[in-house]
């Protein structure tokens, strides 16, 4: 009996971590046997972290919104998709092509980044205003259903905008070009861009939420909206602001995705949304650090699966992880920070 209990306790504490390590460890051993080094695995993990940085930005939006109103903002992935579409369309408007010089490109991409962030942020605030706010006192499933509805509306906007199939976009930054070689792993321009945009944004966001006045209001509202209201916090504005932050992050992710993957299509948001939601839950929903950690981990799993098992199975593997996490560790790796978790 004691052994069974001990096993249960171990699984509860480390089961998820063990499950996460299965893929990298198994393929690491296989690589050591076949090639005698871990270069291929390291390459996978490096790609995974760059991809994961994008998922982390999207996951932040899920976790912020869930933390404050306990809603799975199903349309969030599609807000990210719109961010990509805005970026790609802006390149055309600004005249950014493969021939643009490095200086013009830097300015142009910065402008694109800002506009994509503002556009996605505004869109997210608008969705909250139209689809979630009227339902704040309704049964909990009601806003979830409108969220799904909005997700479909945005996907259709995407279809009307750029068509129903994946669209190749110019590889403006030559994302596959190697910059340095670290122990056999080539770090490309795309990797530097992904990390270089994500890291400062995440730092800014966390500092903002822990230091600023409105960040404090956000945390107070997340803990107890009624008490926050009594303390003079405008709960509606605070919630709108949370959606703005989430949307802004998704917009940035949209631009990076377009530059890094060099294809965009209307359905990218659906998959990205589910992956990012998995990441947010994995880290512990409501928890910003958890979302980033979860994003990076999911990115690695996805990359290993793409590279070794085959891309067509990747969604199934990510969803299987989602189910496993939900069942065995719904509080995530670091722990939830929501009202119900206390």
């Amino acid at each position: 009996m004691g052994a069974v209990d001990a096993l249960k306790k171990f699984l509860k504490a480390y089961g998820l971590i063990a499950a996460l390590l299965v893929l990298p460890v198994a393929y690491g051993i296989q690589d050591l046997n076949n090639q005698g080094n871990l270069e291929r695995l390291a390459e996978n993990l490096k790609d995974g972290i760059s991809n994961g940085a994008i998922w982390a930005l999207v996951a932040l939006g899920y976790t912020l919104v869930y933390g404050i109103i306990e809603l799975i903002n199903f349309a969030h992935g599609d807000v990210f998709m719109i961010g990509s579409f805005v970026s790609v369309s802006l390149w055309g408007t600004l005249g950014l092509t493969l021939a643009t010089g490095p200086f013009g490109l830097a300015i142009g991409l910065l402008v694109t980044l800002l506009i994509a962030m503002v556009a996605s942020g505004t869109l997210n605030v608008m969705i909250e205003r139209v689809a979630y706010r009227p339902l704040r006192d309704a049964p909990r499933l009601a806003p979830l259903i409108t969220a799904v509805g909005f997700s479909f509306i945005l996907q259709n906007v995407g279809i009307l905008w750029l068509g129903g199939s994946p669209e190749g976009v110019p590889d403006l930054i030559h994302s596959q070009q190697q910059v340095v070689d670290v122990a056999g792993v080539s770090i490309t321009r795309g990797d530097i861009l992904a990390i270089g945009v994500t890291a400062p944004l995440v730092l800014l966001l966390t500092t903002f939420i822990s230091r600023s006045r409105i960040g404090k209001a956000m945390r107070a509202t997340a803990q107890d909206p009624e008490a926050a209201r009594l303390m003079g916090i405008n709960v509606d504005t605070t919630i709108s602001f949370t959606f703005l932050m989430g949307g802004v992050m998704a917009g940035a992710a949209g631009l990076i995705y377009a530059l890094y993957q060099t294809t965009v299509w209307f359905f990218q948001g659906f998959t990205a949304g589910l992956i990012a939601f998995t990441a947010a839950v994995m880290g512990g929903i409501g928890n910003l650090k958890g979302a980033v950690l979860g994003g990076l981990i999911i990115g690695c799993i996805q990359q290993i699966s793409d590279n070794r098992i085959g891309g067509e199975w990747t969604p199934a593997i990510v969803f299987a992880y989602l189910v496993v996490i939900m069942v065995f560790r719904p509080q995530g790796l670091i722990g939830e920070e929501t009202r119900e978790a206390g």
Partner: protein
Amino acid sequence: MSVVAERFNRHPNLFIALGFIALGLMFPFFFDSGAGQMQTAVQALAYVAMALGLNLIVGFAGLLDLGYVAFYALGAYTMGWLGSGFFSEAGGGDGLHILVSGQITALPGVHVNFLLVIVAAVIVTTIAGMLIGLPTLRLRGDYIAIVTLAFGEIVGRIAINGDEITVNGTPLTAGRQGITPVDKIKLPGLDQFQALDLRPWYFVALAIVVVVLIVNFRLRDSRLGRAWVAMREDEVAAASMGVPLVKTKLLAYGTGAAFGGVSGAFLASFLNTVNADQFQFSFSIFILAMIILGGLASIWGTVVGAIALSIINFYLIPEVFKNAPQKIGLNFDLTELSFGIFGFLLVIMMVLRPEGLIPERRRKIELHEGVGPTSGVGKTVVEAKG
């Protein structure tokens, strides 16, 4: 006169049902047996059965299932596996035939009597429903939605990539190519159904809907049905009044899934293909939109919602309004927009009339009091803590 009025007051559903069935029985005689309208009608009826199944899970038991497409897929694959030439090696190349007659007996592959396939589909989907329900038992409402969605996607992925999974050299599914042709329905005493003679199909679909309706009404008023509603209203209270949550939830998933399976098997035979592209997330949303439009938990609402959306999807959008965008000078294909339209419907209905077109009485009261099934649980927890 007064006797009839009294009877009506006591059993309004019986009268509405008789009216519906009479209408349903007359409908096919207004159209040519191969007409497009008949095609739409048969599909609409199959979707009614499916929507009633989902309504049982989402409406009665309050478990938001976003992966209902999994049961459609499993039902359809049961039909595809047990009623086509897909397993061409079966019986040493001569085929395996169980209670079938006519020219089918000469074909290779597995061919099982349609009624037995239906039984198999019910068994398979009920078990699948319970298996999918199992991990969600302890989860809160919105997490259930995501886990069921994940299962739906996993089943869809397996359907798409199933041609890579082989057991003894036989693939699991035919992937995007699809298993085709699928055996036409053959009922005892009747000839094999024909692809262009849609009336028999229509009557079989109508019969399925009638059976599903009867089961739905009887279940709703049964001990189990009341347990579902109690659980939807307040899980903690229901459990303390002695409702066994695990059993009640699993039965909801299992029964709801079975309806999807029956309808899926029927559709596989009717559409003559089991194709992985049919089993996408948008299908789950399509069925969910039917329930929301009609009114969650309302049986008649679900029927109306399912018929309305089927007509919009299979008739109005592709045939009647196909050229509308060109007429107002826009250049796009309206069929591409159909899911945007359903998304819009979901939002509009939820914001403006969350109780649906034909609301269920109890739910309407709840919505207008602002106290809902799942929010009730959360609220008490917060209040108790605060």
